[in-house]
């Protein structure tokens, strides 16, 4: 949920100049098999964060919803969509309560990224980029946001060296047509001009599925993805 809201707002913002009508691809991401069970995160080492959470925070490696919905899946158009420019508006990545919000953050190549620290403790942001330039910076409380942008499309694992449990993903894409599933597993890619598209769904750490969809006119096509999960 958290994740998808800003993204949709952002889509509207960026596509306003473009054609307001067009096709929509929507659907649901589900899983089969047994998902690994979420483990409670032990924040005892960082009391200032631990006391912000009434109930222990759970790991976000696999987040599922009712009737096998799978959250935190990035669904995007990997081929066929116009490779629009990066939106002017920045995406923000917030550190609060020793957690990353959102856990999965999608953005366009060259789009500005703001990293905020809303905690009373220093954080460290270490995107383990391989294609792009890897960096590793600490952010004491009350310091200005760290600004950066990624030039190449890549899925980048993000960690905090000071708090090992803090873990997130930057999904850097060449398109603005993407959506991140919430706990209901639903996604929607609106405002698509007619054409043939390849749609990719990515789930951490390295699950990828693609489907071909053809949009003709103002229709809404439904596409579903299903990932096989293992307990370990």
């Amino acid at each position, binding site marked *: 949920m958290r994740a998808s809201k800003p993204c949709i707002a952002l889509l509207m913002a960026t596509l306003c100049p473009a054609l307001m009508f067009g096709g929509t691809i929507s659907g649901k991401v589900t899983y089969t098999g047994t998902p690994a069970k979420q483990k409670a995160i032990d924040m005892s080492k960082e009391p200032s964060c631990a006391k912000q959470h009434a109930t222990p925070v759970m790991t976000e490696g696999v987040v599922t919803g009712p009737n096998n919905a799978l959250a935190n899946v990035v669904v995007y158009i990997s081929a066929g969509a116009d490779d629009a420019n990066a939106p002017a508006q920045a995406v923000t990545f917030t550190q609060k309560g020793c957690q990353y919000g959102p856990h999965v953050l999608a953005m366009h190549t060259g789009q500005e990224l703001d990293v905020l620290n809303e905690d009373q*403790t220093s954080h460290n942001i270490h995107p383990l980029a391989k294609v792009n330039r890897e960096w*590793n*910076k*600490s952010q004491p409380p009350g310091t200005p946001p760290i600004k950066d942008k990624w030039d190449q499309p890549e899925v980048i694992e993000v*960690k905090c060296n000071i708090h090992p449990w803090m873990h997130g993903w930057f999904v850097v894409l060449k398109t603005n047509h993407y959506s991140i599933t919430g706990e209901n597993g639903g996604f929607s890619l609106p405002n698509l001009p007619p054409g043939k598209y390849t749609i990719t769904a990515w789930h951490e750490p390295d699950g990828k599925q693609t489907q071909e969809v053809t949009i003709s006119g103002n229709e809404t096509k439904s596409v579903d993805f299903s990932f096989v999960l293992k307990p370990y």
Partner: protein
Amino acid sequence: MSEASAHAAHHTAPTGFIRKYVFSLDHKIIGLQYYALGLVAVVTGMVLSWIMRIHLVWPNSPIPLVQWLSKVGAPGGVVTPEYYLSLMTMHGTLMVFFVLTNAPFAAFGNYFLPIQIGAEDMAFPRFNMMSFWTTFVAFCILISAFFVGDGPPLAGWTAYAPLSAVGKDSGPGEGLGQTLWGLSIFVFCIASLLGSLNFIATTLDLRTKGMTLARMPICTWAWFITSCISLLAFAVLLPACLLLVLDRVGGTSFFIPSGLNVSDHLQPHQGGSPLLWQHLFWFFGHPEVYIAIVPAMGIVSHILINNMRKPLLSHKVIVYCMMAIGFLSYMVWGHHMFLSGMNPFSALVFSFPTLMITIPATIMTLIWLGSLYGSNLRINAASLFCLGFISMFVAGGVSGFFLAQPTIDIYLHATYFVVGHFHMVMGVAAIFGVFAGTYFWFPKMTGRMMNETLGRWHFWLSFIGTYAIFMPFHYLGLAGNVRRYSAFTDDFLVPLVPVHKFITYAALFTGAAQLIFLFNLIYSRFKGPAATANPWECTSLEWSTPSSPPPFDNFGGVHPVVYHDPYQYGVKSSTGDYLMQTSPERAGETP
């Protein structure tokens, strides 16, 4: 091997500015160059320590001007944890290598060792010039680490592997910064080896007529012993740095074991031994402590004798003690590693000689104290700093007694107790020796006197200040305050912050007091009253040169002949209560 041409070259003094002051073969100029380099390094190191102290007690508040030092390291002036460690590493490296090794040993040694033995220059003037400029290159390489990508290294001046060896994965500054560090120290080792070689050959071969080993002043002995220590110590650090740099850039695995997962990067290395680095480093590292303190001991003895107007109770014992310390310093390196996983039995083996070192140290202290008794002690800036040195040496020495015992080390290891200990005994004490030397020899080096009143104020403030800074470190250690923390977030450390605040104020105050010294140095250099030939009525050869500063070949073409042991004080002679080493009179005879 270059002395033939060198001497050919320096029969006549060079005239051009470059040959005279920049690439000079003259040991006096080179000595001053070392002194200047040390001064730059110590000011830099001190400023870094200020930033650290301020950050420690106000971790989240911006420090003025610091954001200009590094935008990433101190966003908006707030020092990040990694940048704190970078500052700490640079502070340690600058102070240990470029101040404590350069100032008391290379600077004063270069200037006065040849004069005190009546030589016209070092044995190998070319090597001498090379060793300074090599040191300078090392300094530049180290400083350049401030300006590279992710800043200076953060592995501390001890650069423990694998933190220092696995490369950028282990944190900011561990990329190019750490490599530059390794390179800088590698180059520094070469410089020090050249220097030591020069000192040893000069002392053994260039002594003038009648200057027997027994007639060398104590500081000459100190520099000679130090050069022997540093010859062997740096000869070990050199290959160690080579291996470290190879691990970093050559992909070897000397210090890096198998199966390391450093921030989600599985390291390709295998089979290396982190303890190997610690052994090699500390085999150098402990003697290094004595490379810093022994010259200070020599300088202080020399100046103290002159101001007491009587020789020490025993000249020989002091020299033997310095030798003993130098010798023992090679058998104790393991006391830095009691808890690092070496065989627990070896801890006891290393502990014993460590405790034994207190014996020569105590003997020296007792001799200094005992010699004060019944003396006509002159009180001036130089002698005050000598007395301060003794006080500091005692204070830092007794705390060594705790750390020498593995049992107590279990509790005190890596706490501020250690920081207090080595800052007092090796840092401040050695620096006091340098101050004493400066006030004492300034007339000879520049031909002008330093301002006495400012000198005394400098001493009073520094003396009180250093105790105010470093004594509380011991208390913090006893409370279990861990060192090398960039902020105190632990429940048991937070209550101690007021003590840290006090230390920070003291540090700022003491640092500011050093401005008096800098001002005095510069002011007296140009405006100070002209110095007489031998203002302190001192006996050793440096005061029998025809002019201050001495001419190019030190003694104006003639070679002094030495007739006496170095410290003929409290005698009746034509000159008063002392007899120059070069005076043919016999002590006691009235001419």
